[in-house]
């Protein structure tokens, strides 16, 4: 009469697994994305400080930061504490399935712990009120509302956004007495960060060399192994979690790392932008805002694609201008203030160089081409697939390109 509890999740049955595996082999994803394409991330900030609702496709999480004054641990008497907690029991109906032995909550909690606590992203010393007596205890609660894969990324992004959004009241400690100031007396204080980590998840399948980024629940459950990488905005690795049964070569992991580093940087930029827009909105008087924006269709949506597209446009225009400037001696556009712009450009150039240096240790991402799987197994490839869309032409082009990039590994991989 009832649904078999193990089949309640997509991707757990054998037929679903083989379906996903064969789709991956053909470089096709169920939702039409490319293997390195992410779902759009949307943030909604609540009326209270530190409340963030995040949606990533159908995956939805709610993060809430709260704080109170407590006693520090004896080992670190001059530091506040950060506690992270993920809750998957509520409306997501996940515990319905594998009652007690569910590893999901444990893995999620430990990943968050490593990403935020072990990497020491918060300046905990700034949360100290009186050494070995009173410190701020910051608590992050993440409620999973809906699970459609990639809870890791959703929860780390939501947690980071909530921590960055959060404001704590100011306190003073005079003559053994703590005084907490209300919002009216003193302005609330944001938390201090040392760096901003976010994670990026990849799924690896035995049938394909190309890992899938940002998997859905179906893809995640059918995956042979899952790689989670946390990078901060300086493109430093904070967490690496690789498990599962698929043998993964170093190159794949490095390729994932390269993509993840860039993605993390963009994500942190996106969160910063969203926070700015939220702050602007809060300054407007008599404006109603909060999580009811989720219901309101006309409310401004803080989505990654929308905000970062703008960013890309802004970034490209000065680049183009610079190129034109370099090519022709005569300035094509009469700029109003040429001197400050030149000054502006020089630091930017340096910045660009340094960022390139930052990721110099990472190999260039392999160009994603539809023809790779057909090239890998020429005997099994369907001939009609190669014929239409000029597959052969593409194939020869890509192999040429890869030869040009003088990497031996790439060549061997194709053979």
């Amino acid at each position, binding site marked *: 009469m009832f649904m078999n509890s193990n089949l309640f999740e997509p991707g757990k049955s054998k037929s679903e697994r083989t379906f996903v595996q064969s789709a991956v082999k053909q470089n096709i994803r169920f939702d039409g994305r490319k293997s390195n394409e992410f779902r759009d991330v949307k943030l909604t900030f609540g009326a209270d400080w530190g409340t963030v609702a995040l949606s990533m496709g159908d995956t939805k999480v709610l993060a809430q930061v709260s704080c109170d004054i407590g006693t520090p641990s004896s080992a670190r008497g001059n530091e506040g504490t950060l506690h992270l907690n993920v809750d998957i029991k509520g*409306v997501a109906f996940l515990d319905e399935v594998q009652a007690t032995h569910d590893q999901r909550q444990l893995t999620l909690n430990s990943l968050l712990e490593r990403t935020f606590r072990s990497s020491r992203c918060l300046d905990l010393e700034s949360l100290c009120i009186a050494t070995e007596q009173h410190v701020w205890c910051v608590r992050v609660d993440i409620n999973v509302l809906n699970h459609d894969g990639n809870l890791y990324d959703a929860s780390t992004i939501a947690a980071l956004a909530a921590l960055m959004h959060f404001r704590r009241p100011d306190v003073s400690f005079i003559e053994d007495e703590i005084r907490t100031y209300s919002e009216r007396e003193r302005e609330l204080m944001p938390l201090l960060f040392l760096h901003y980590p976010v994670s990026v998840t990849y799924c690896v399948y035995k049938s394909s060399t190309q890992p899938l980024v940002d998997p859905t629940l179906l893809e995640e459950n059918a995956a042979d192994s899952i790689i989670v990488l946390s990078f901060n905005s300086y493109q430093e690795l904070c967490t690496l979690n690789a498990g599962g049964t698929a043998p993964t070569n170093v190159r794949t992991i490095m390729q994932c790392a390269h993509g993840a580093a860039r993605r993390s940087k963009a994500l942190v930029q996106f969160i910063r932008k969203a926070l700015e827009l939220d702050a602007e909105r809060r300054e407007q008087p008599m404006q109603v805002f*909060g999580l009811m924006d989720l219901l309101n269709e006309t409310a401004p949506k803080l989505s990654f694609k929308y905000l970062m597209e703008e960013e890309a446009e802004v970034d490209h225009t000065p680049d183009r201008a610079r190129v034109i400037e370099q090519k022709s001696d005569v300035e094509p556009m009469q700029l109003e203030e040429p001197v400050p712009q030149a000054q502006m450009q020089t630091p930017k150039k340096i910045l660009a160089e340094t960022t390139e240096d930052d990721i110099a240790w990472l190999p260039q991402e392999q160009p994603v081409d539809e023809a790779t799987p057909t090239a890998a197994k020429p005997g099994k490839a369907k001939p009609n697939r190669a014929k239409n869309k000029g597959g052969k032409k593409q194939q020869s082009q890509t192999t040429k390109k890869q030869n040009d990039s003088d990497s031996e590994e790439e060549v061997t991989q194709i053979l």
Partner: protein
Amino acid sequence: MSKKAATNAAKDKLREMQCKFNPLSRSDGSVMYSQGATVVIAAVLGPIEVKTQNLSIEGSYLECNYRPKAGLPQVKERIREAAIRDVLELALLSEAYPRSKMSLQVQELEDRGSTDACALNSACLALLIGGLPLKYSFAAVHCIINEQGEFVLDPELNETLRQQASFTFAFDSVDGNLLLVQTKGAFKIAQFNDIECICRAASAQIFDFYRSNLAKYHGRSAENDSSSTDLPMET
């Protein structure tokens, strides 16, 4: 002057209600419901397999959880849960599915006053959209008596800070019977009767809201369904 008139007018009106059906993909029915700035999500699953310890041959077992957005559920949340469960046990036609479980989860998204009423209303909408058997639908209304002795219907959070008494009533849709009464604070019986009348009148407005939104959802989803069934066929 006009501002004062506006606030006076707001005191005997419900805040604006909004809802969105099935925002969650994993439940049988879910709804995101807001009343003013208070937002909750309710989701139902059922009838599903039940653990042997909860199994009942008389009717289905009802699981009801309310989750706060910060921290673990405390006594306050348990009380709220108990109130929701009491009303649901009256309204659910549990005899229809013996040896099974109905699960209702309510997640608070933002608490800005009258959360009890909001949670109950969202629970009712979730049950309706999830297609669980009900004897009748129900609506809950929250009302307070403020310091000046005025009645404030569906108050904001800052209005509830200084209150003489607070009331939550739930009514059924068929006979208009009282399903739940929660009171706090000191009041006269005449005031209680007055507030009951005010809340009863307001509940009619909520039932209208249910009706119009469900009609709209099903009307629209009929078109959407035909297009969405085509999609899997293509792939």
